[in-house]
């Protein structure tokens, strides 16, 4: 049921991408996302596709597994494509009733589809190859320069890691409560929209109650172990850059350069 949502769930294999420092992966994801929006013609997507294919094959995560996760955003994708298709003004190719499809519309819709799907695949590669703990470690260290501006980086990273840590627990809990209510004859699938929303009450109330209970327990447990924020806190496995990370940075800069060059030239 809910477990089928693979969007960004860590995929445990050992690969060159998995071994990279999380800061590199965070930076890489950012570069990739920026590159998608820098590009304004189809030629620019050639290096993007090449980059994506290389990373996917290096990551050893089956492509099928990634696409399965895409299903979750299929609706969003279709919605934005259709909107763009009809909204754009320009040379009309085809029209009926009040709707018309324009040349510009097709172009923006195409861009939108590519951008959105690349965006999702690109960012899911990061979460597929990085454990949540590593990810927040990377964020904390990578953004630590913000401390000068009094941004509570550690606290934000801690909140994030707790939130991420709780996702699988809450998913499991949802699954369990759903099953328990189904055992009492609850039906989450049939009926019209109002009935469907109403049928969620027996799921949501216990879920909220348990989320608050867990939050309370966790806060208590953290305090009992003397947690008082990030000051003076050391790490068991501090992040360190290795040679492969340097190579990865180099590749990223070359990629970014190529994208900018294409934008300028074409």
């Amino acid at each position, binding site marked *: 049921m809910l*477990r089928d949502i693979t969007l960004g769930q860590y995929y445990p294999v050992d690969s060159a991408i998995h071994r990279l420092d999380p800061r590199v992966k965070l930076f890489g994801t950012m570069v990739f996302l920026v590159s998608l929006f820098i590009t304004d013609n189809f030629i620019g997507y050639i290096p993007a596709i090449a980059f994506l294919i290389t990373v996917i094959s290096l990551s050893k995560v089956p492509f099928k597994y990634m696409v399965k996760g895409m299903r979750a955003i299929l609706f969003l994708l279709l919605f934005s494509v259709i909107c763009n298709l009809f909204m754009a003004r320009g040379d009309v190719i085809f029209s009926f009733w009040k709707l018309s499809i324009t040349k510009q519309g097709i172009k923006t819709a195409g861009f939108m589809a590519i951008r959105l799907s690349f965006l999702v695949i690109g960012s899911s590669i990061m979460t597929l190859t990085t454990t949540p703990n590593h990810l927040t470690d990377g964020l904390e260290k990578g953004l630590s320069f913000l401390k000068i501006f009094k941004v509570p980086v550690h606290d934000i990273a801690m909140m994030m890691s707790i939130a991420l840590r709780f996702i699988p627990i809450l998913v499991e809990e949802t699954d369990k409560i759903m099953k328990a*209510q189904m055992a*009492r*004859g*609850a039906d989450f699938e049939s009926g019209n929209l109002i009935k469907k929303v109403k049928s969620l*009450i027996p799921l949501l109330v*216990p879920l909220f109650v348990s989320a608050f209970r867990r939050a309370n327990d966790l806060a208590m447990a953290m305090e009992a172990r003397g947690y008082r924020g990030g000051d003076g806190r050391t790490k068991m496995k501090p992040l360190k850059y290795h040679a492969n990370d340097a190579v990865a940075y180099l590749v990223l800069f070359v990629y970014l350069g190529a994208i900018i060059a294409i934008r300028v030239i074409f």
Partner: protein
Amino acid sequence: MSMILNHVSYVYNPGTPMESRALTDINLKINDGEFLGLIGHTGSGKSTLVQHLNGLLLPTSGEVYFNGADISDPEFSRKELRGKVGLVFQYPEHQLFEADVFSDVCFGPINKGLSKKEAELKAFTALKQVGIEDEYFYQSPFDLSGGQKRRVAIAGVLAMEPEVLVLDEPTAGLDPAGRDEILGMLSNIQKDRGCSIVLVSHSMEDVAEYADRIIVMNKGSIVFDDTPSEVFKFSDELENMGLRAPEVTRALKKLKEEGFNVDVSCVNVRDGVETISKCFGI
């Protein structure tokens, strides 16, 4: 009522790196009006097995038959099955959601398609049977004590009047008094309603006291399927699976080894006391 599991196997997350085999070739028949104990170490597949009984999980291979119909059949109404095979999950108090106790217990029978009046009657009977007094009926279920919440949750399933009542560790996290209360209540319910009960537990004492028949699971397979006194003869094998025969049986076995003439097949304290008294001629 007849419930038959035929060569049932179940695999979680097939085709992913998280793939894990939970059940292997389970064959089982649940008889009418039987009190069946299902024991096994944590992770032995007990909870997975019970979810097959009401169709929450469907076997990866093999079949589950309820009254002769295969529950994997697309024509088969699993919603109806869930009314006939009541499943009480671990920590059932976590499923309570209504504003008051009484409406929460009504949830099951109303889902079964009963009228409001009928549902209320069934809820009333069920609440009485689990020993919840009228004064609690219109309180929020969240204000009750742990033991009361659990009994309300059990009543929620009981109100659907199942032919088989399956309980997954109904005594987990309760003190000894609460435990005895729940188990005694279950035994009474079984006598009153004549339904079959499947009790999942990892406490031998619980199961030995009430079950007519015990199924022992280990690593997803059934290892023993017999009466309590027969199963507990294999105390060494049980220990290897991370389980223990009841204290009484183990004490009697020790006495026997020391040369006392006691009956080692006793599984509860009452019989144990009797055979020791007899041995010493008291």
